[in-house]
């Protein structure tokens, strides 16, 4: 029941998205504009400061992720379908997991675009250790999405929800940003700092475990009025 419900929610969101690709394309384009804005802000004489590539990557993920979170939950607000979902006989945290997986899929696609783009624009050797990079991206994205999905869901019925989401989300996910940026920077250092990267992957993994668990626990009480 739990896994099936999560899968059904994921598939439903996918079916809706596929019809128009609205959230996907706008999120991707926003991510690209983010990268360009920061590039123009930091690049001087054709050179970006050290580690800027790592920072810009994670800023783009965080900002576009926040927008995407707001938009996907806006879909459940229209016609109050979130209520219908909460009425389903499945355990309610399964809905959270379905939404989380959808968010992860969306951000994964965004990252597939962002990583080559940043490597290209900043001559950053992001592909020297692809597995470690993937682990850092995965660890950070899961942490950010776990907290983000919960907060976006709980804010669906709140006033001022658009601005409250970043206000709440960013301070709490600072460890993810630090871990993601420093871990990525460790991979861009010469020579590559593998132990450093692995240490950050560990911290991100711990964060993920704690916050996915906390979100699963608090989802139901937060969703009932």
């Amino acid at each position, binding site marked *: 029941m739990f896994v099936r419900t999560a899968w059904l929610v994921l598939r439903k969101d996918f079916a809706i998205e596929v019809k128009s690709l609205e959230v996907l394309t706008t999120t991707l384009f926003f991510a690209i504009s983010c990268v360009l804005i920061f590039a123009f802000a930091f690049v001087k004489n054709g050179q970006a400061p050290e580690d800027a590539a790592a920072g810009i990557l994670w800023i783009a993920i965080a900002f576009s992720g926040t927008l995407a979170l707001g938009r996907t939950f806006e879909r459940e607000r229209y016609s109050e379908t979130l209520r219908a979902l909460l009425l389903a006989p499945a355990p309610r945290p399964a809905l959270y997991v379905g939404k989380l997986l959808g968010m992860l899929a969306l951000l994964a696609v965004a990252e597939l675009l962002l990583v080559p783009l940043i490597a290209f624009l900043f001559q950053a050797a992001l592909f020297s250790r692809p597995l470690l990079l993937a682990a850092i991206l995965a660890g950070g994205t899961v942490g950010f999405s776990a*907290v983000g999905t*919960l*907060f976006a869901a*709980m*804010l669906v*019925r*709140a*006033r*001022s929800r658009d601005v*409250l989401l970043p*206000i*709440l989300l960013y*301070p*709490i*996910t*600072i*460890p993810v940003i*630090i*871990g993601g940026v*420093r871990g990525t920077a460790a991979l861009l250092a010469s020579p590559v700092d593998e132990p450093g990267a692995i*240490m950050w992957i560990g*911290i991100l993994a*711990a*964060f993920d475990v*704690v*916050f996915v668990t*906390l979100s699963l626990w*608090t989802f139901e*009480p*937060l969703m009932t*009025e």
Partner: protein
Amino acid sequence: MKKAFIPLLSVVAVMFVVAPFLIANAPYESTMGLIQKIFYYHVPSWFAMYLAIGVSGVASAIYLFKGTPIADAYANAGAEVAVVFGLCGLITGPLWGRVAWGVWWQWDVRLTTALLLELIFVAYLMVRRYGGPGAEKLAAATALFGTATAPFVYKSVDIWRTVHPQTSVIPTLKPSMGGPFAFSALAFLLLSTLLLTARVHLAKRQMMVDQLYLAHEDQP
């Protein structure tokens, strides 16, 4: 607790009056001179803040899962007191830094963590104010997640900072500094507890007024 409030308040008031004398008589720290004495206010501010954060986090968890209104009152009180003492710490810290090392802010791990926690609990207060009906639960989630993230913030900022050289912020305590420090710490912790209690008392009174309104409406 009600009966003890006024006496304890007097005790705290006396402690705050006496403290400057104790601090003035405490020995000077070797490198920093007079400015170091701000630490008798700075560090106890953090203690007071963390006490309030702990109360807010635990009360928020209770409120989320049990729904008891008094837990919500403690969560809110804790957040407000945390923001106040956090502000004290965030003002005294840079003042100290500016005089001792010439820079207002150098991303010291404790100050940075405290800044983030301050942001989180200011966000708590904003959610309560602007979130619309049912905002108490949303705020409770903020406090709970905020408290849970504190160790991660500390650890990641710590590692992030050790890449750059840094001067030690907390000097080693000479034995004779221990006395005034403990005194100040006790004064701040006591003040924090009293403020929490007073704020919760106010919230209880507000709940009573609401109950009276509701009871009045109930009459045929």
